[in-house]
């Protein structure tokens, strides 16, 4: 063996703590307009070195523009971008210590896989022997050693992406930018690649900035997520924070599915309050924020926290909200069913996993059945005062 390609050798090459501190990104009051349309509106936030950070949003929210700005392909109208201590706002892409994985991988069609990965090192005029060592190492990392002499046209989508990753990492950049890297892959492969990306991030330890419109992807691998809409950042937090404590209705609805409840506050206690909803009566909810009687508030309750039963459950306490409704629609998905229940004039969605715990769960619910929906008032989340 001429060289050792174990993961530990990797970690020796990349001094984690040093890289991590240098790999943090500061976005400072960035604004950008195209043809009179404001695409980024005064955005400021920080990405910590070594994080797996996702930027999540629908099309047109500005996430790709922001990513390309960090890469250096677009210049901001106003504001600055810092990489570690360095102001990179006006640096051209080839001078930034940042590398990008493109949506279509952008592999060089005229070069072999080996040469594609070697490309950055050849630019730096690294010695041939060292290039060989490094390229082989990264080919091992992405498990493509046998394909070294193939051309990109001979590879599958997943393999092409791995080449793109190896090529970007061989430069040992401080940050890796990923522009919707999984959107061109089919569903099963997407999941597999997502896990691989997570593993590579673990091994390499540098900052990953991951842009996607798929909230499931973002939730599953990110350390933190920034949710964007119309050029603004609505919320930044861990996946759990974003899911359980969404900043507003848009975030709540964008991430996963949810139910909204609105009403006037009629009573306030120490940790809970009650609102009067127009369609179905009094609802108890946990006070995540301070409210006063008379205010209109909006709650959100995730469908998996709403129980659906045919017969009235036996174990209820006064923290539970319970209503009667009729099953309008059900969607069976093997491991779970989604129920859409009308309560009053509102349609509630409730997810039920098919696991038999209590007697009630053993009942089969049919379309048009009269059912009870129950949820614990601690499970709802107070979004905002309207």
């Amino acid at each position: 063996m001429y060289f050792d390609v174990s993961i530990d050798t990797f970690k020796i090459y990349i001094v984690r703590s040093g890289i991590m501190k240098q790999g943090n990104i500061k976005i400072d009051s960035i604004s950008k307009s195209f043809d009179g349309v404001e695409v980024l509106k005064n955005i400021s936030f920080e990405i910590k070195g070594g994080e797996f950070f996702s930027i999540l949003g629908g099309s047109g929210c500005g996430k790709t523009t922001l990513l390309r700005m960090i890469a250096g392909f677009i210049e901001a109208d106003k504001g600055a971008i810092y990489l570690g201590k360095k102001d990179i706002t006006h640096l051209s892409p080839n001078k930034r210590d940042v590398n990008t994985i493109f949506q279509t991988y952008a592999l060089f069609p005229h070069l072999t896989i080996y040469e594609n990965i070697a490309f950055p090192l050849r630019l730096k005029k690294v010695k041939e022997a060292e290039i060989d060592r490094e390229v082989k190492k990264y080919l091992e990392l992405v498990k493509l050693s046998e394909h070294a002499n193939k051309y990109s046209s001979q590879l599958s989508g997943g393999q092409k992406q791995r080449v793109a990753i190896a090529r970007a990492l061989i430069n040992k950049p401080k940050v890796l930018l990923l522009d919707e890297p999984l959107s061109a892959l089919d569903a099963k492969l997407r999941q597999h690649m997502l896990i691989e990306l997570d593993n590579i991030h673990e091994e390499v330890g540098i900052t990953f900035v991951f842009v996607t419109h798929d909230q499931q992807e973002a939730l599953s691998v990110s350390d933190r997520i920034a949710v964007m809409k119309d050029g603004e950042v609505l919320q930044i937090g861990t996946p759990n924070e974003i899911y359980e404590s969404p900043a507003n209705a848009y975030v709540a609805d964008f991430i996963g599915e949810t139910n909204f409840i609105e009403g006037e506050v009629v009573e306030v206690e120490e940790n809970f309050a009650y609102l009067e909803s127009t369609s179905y009566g009094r609802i108890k909810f946990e006070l995540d924020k301070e409210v006063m009687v008379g205010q209109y508030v909006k709650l959100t309750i995730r469908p998996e926290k709403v129980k659906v039963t045919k017969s009235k459950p036996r174990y209820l306490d006064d923290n539970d909200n319970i209503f009667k409704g009729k099953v309008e629609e059900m969607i069976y998905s093997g491991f779970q069913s989604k129920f859409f229940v009308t309560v009053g004039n509102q349609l509630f969605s409730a997810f039920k996993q098919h696991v038999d715990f209590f007697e009630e769960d053993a009942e089969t619910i049919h379309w048009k059945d009269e059912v009870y929906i129950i949820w614990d008032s601690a499970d709802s989340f107070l979004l905002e005062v309207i």
Partner: protein
Amino acid sequence: MNKKKFSMNIFILTLVFLYLPLVVLIVQSFNSGKGVSWDGFSLKWYDELFNHSARLWTSFKYSILIAVTSSIISTAIGTLGAISLQWYSFKHKKYLQVISYLPLVLPDIIMGVSLLILFTSIKFKLGLFSIFLAHTTFNIPFVLFIVLSRLHDFDYSIVEAAYDLGATEKETLTKVVLPNLMPGIISGLLMSITLSLDDFVITFFVAGPGSSTLPLHIYSMIKFGVSPVINALSVILIAGTIALAMSTKKIQKYMVS
């Protein structure tokens, strides 16, 4: 299908129309007599072509020289121009688009006349170099449009990837853009060589005394009625063109794979 038969007939008639004069030429080149009536098979005109036509071969040499040099220069200039139009904005972009389109649609004679007047008015001596300048000028727009149409389908993300990985503008151009643009560049080069070898009108106006290209020489041969050698030359040229076309197809096939 009535329409199908009709168009097939027209097609066949057209083929006959296109090939008939060439067939006559080929047959006549082996005719030992000067006139139209058949005098017996002979290769004497070929003999005269190859062994007693020094001036013709000189003009052929000049044609090749000018074709190669003008096509290399025009391909280089045209390729860079196409890149500028496809990926960059600059103040005179609209102007460039207009002036690179016009030469393609204006009749040759206008270009020939205007170049002649230009050269004479600045007292520039007419000769091989003036022909070279003229040929490069009319070749550039062809190269530009051929390369530009290739650029329309070019995956620009590999250019961004090159920058992203640390390449300078020059490195990106030489290591990524040009290698992937090669088929278009070669097409442009071949087109230029063909146009240059074949050009008569423009060359006629800008040539000086003593500098002659093959088409000019052929023209003077036709005017002075030295017929049968022209027949032999025609056959050689036709054969050569077909051979070149065949080998070009082979090269292009090879490049695509």
